[in-house]
């Protein structure tokens, strides 16, 4: 991993995001994107003051959806940090995966309103390219010159966990030298928020937005919708070393599974999540005892918090009692299809900087959730190996194993 880009509720560049993570800054506030008078949930983690024309020309900005604008801005940051230019190498060797859980909801809603109120001829000819969930990957290719393997992965809130894992596999199997991989989402819209309110999945702690996302805390009452994009440059190690790129961390393993259980609820024993973690560790060649940090999916819902806690205990056994686990969602909210990418990036930064980000708002832990969740404050700790979990509606589970660039661990010989 040689570069990262961020458009998030807690910062629109790496250093701001990192400062927010270690200082426990919440990006949650009252929704400003639309009138929430009739909504039980009136809070979300919005991206504020995003000017797409900092990253693209006016016409491009006008013709792509908000989630695509985020993806392009984050991709350009990641390439800039990495120093990789697809146009200065064989562009067919650079692929793009931008995952999104939903795609361009705002654009669907706007055009549906136009259809009902003003008729079929007022549907924008750009609606389809603005809303389809694969378009971010297409736009990033058009704007960066990366012409290799290119698509989107849609697996709800696990989308970019899968995206980064699959991108690493694409490089490993030789189909690309480098991949731009991550996720983008922009679903703080009237229809989407209303739909999540109807599932009773979102927090209604409207009077204390910054305290609303409280994974593993007894006072939790649902997740907080976020928006944004995080993209990273993954690159074959010998290629990165040959060009002298700074390596921030490594994707050492990836495992995925399905609960096969329910539309929206996780398996209450966390059985599917545990299988994803075990597979990822097995593929990395490391043992559970070598893991020093878990960046949890941790959405701040009772069912999810308990299931993930049980899953971690079943995978790590006695080691779970000493294993620090945190949910950075407590700060940046739930970016749905971009969540896995933001959390993988947070994990890489935690290993790089030797500081584990906290779970903020964890004042009164649920007795059923009894791991070390790094409550309230960041913890300085040098860790060589971590995992990042992402789970999605539909029962999709993805786990990434991340190794520090400066790791003292031996690289296992894989079969």
């Amino acid at each position, binding site marked *: 991993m040689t570069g990262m880009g961020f458009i998030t509720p807690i910062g629109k560049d790496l250093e701001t995001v990192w400062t927010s993570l270690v200082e426990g800054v919440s990006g949650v506030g009252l929704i400003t994107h639309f009138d929430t008078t009739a909504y039980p949930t009136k809070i979300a983690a919005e991206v504020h003051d995003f000017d797409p024309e900092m990253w693209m020309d006016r016409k*491009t900005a006008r013709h792509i959806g908000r989630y695509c604008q985020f993806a392009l801005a984050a991709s350009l940051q990641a390439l800039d940090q990495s120093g990789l230019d697809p146009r200065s190498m064989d562009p067919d060797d650079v692929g793009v995966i931008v995952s999104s859980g939903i795609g361009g909801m705002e654009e669907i809603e706007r055009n549906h309103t136009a259809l009902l109120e003003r008729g079929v*001829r007022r549907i924008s*000819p*750009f609606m389809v390219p603005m809303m389809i969930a694969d378009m971010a990957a297409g736009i990033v290719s058009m704007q960066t010159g990366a012409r290799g393997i290119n698509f989107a992965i849609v697996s709800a809130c696990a989308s970019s966990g899968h995206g980064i894992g699959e991108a690493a596999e694409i490089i490993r199997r030789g189909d690309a030298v480098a991949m731009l991989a991550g996720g983008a989402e922009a679903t703080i819209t009237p229809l989407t928020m209303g739909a999540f309110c109807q599932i009773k999945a979102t927090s209604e702690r409207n009077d204390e937005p910054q305290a609303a996302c409280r994974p593993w805390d007894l006072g939790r009452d649902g997740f907080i919708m976020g928006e944004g994009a995080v993209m990273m440059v993954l690159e074959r190690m010998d290629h990165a070393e040959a060009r002298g790129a700074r390596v921030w961390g490594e994707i050492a393993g990836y495992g995925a599974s399905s609960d096969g259980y329910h539309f929206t609820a996780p398996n209450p024993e966390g059985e599917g999540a545990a299988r994803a973690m075990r597979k990822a560790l097995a593929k990395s060649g490391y043992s559970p005892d070598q893991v020093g940090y878990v960046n949890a999916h941790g959405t701040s819902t009772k069912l999810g918090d308990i299931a993930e806690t049980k899953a971690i205990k079943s995978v790590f056994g006695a080691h779970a009692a000493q294993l620090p686990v945190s949910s950075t969602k407590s700060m940046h909210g739930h970016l749905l299809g971009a969540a896995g990418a933001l959390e993988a990036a947070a994990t890489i930064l935690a290993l790089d900087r030797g500081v584990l980000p906290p779970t903020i708002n964890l004042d009164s832990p649920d007795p059923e959730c009894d791991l070390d969740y790094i409550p309230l404050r960041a913890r300085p700790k040098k860790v060589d190996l971590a995992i990042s979990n992402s789970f999605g509606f539909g029962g999709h589970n993805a786990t990434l194993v991340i190794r520090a660039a400066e790791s003292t661990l031996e690289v296992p010989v894989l079969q």
Partner: protein
Amino acid sequence: MTSNLKFSELQELAAEILGVEPDQVGLEKSFARDLAADSLDLVELIAAVEDKYDVELPEDTLEAMHNVGDLWEFLQANARQEA
């Protein structure tokens, strides 16, 4: 027949949709060649022009127009908008 339309308003409208500066939208400019408008842009432009000027602008009519001046003449002859 309305003769009190302001050309600057059409310039601003077209500029917004085509992603150019208003003063680039000159009477002699071709939509496709000079203003880089593709077929999707023109569909969007038709909708915006119809709304603003309360006219019907069939797609083949716009396609038959060579430049911004042709559209401007059409609007002056057909617009029902009160300026």
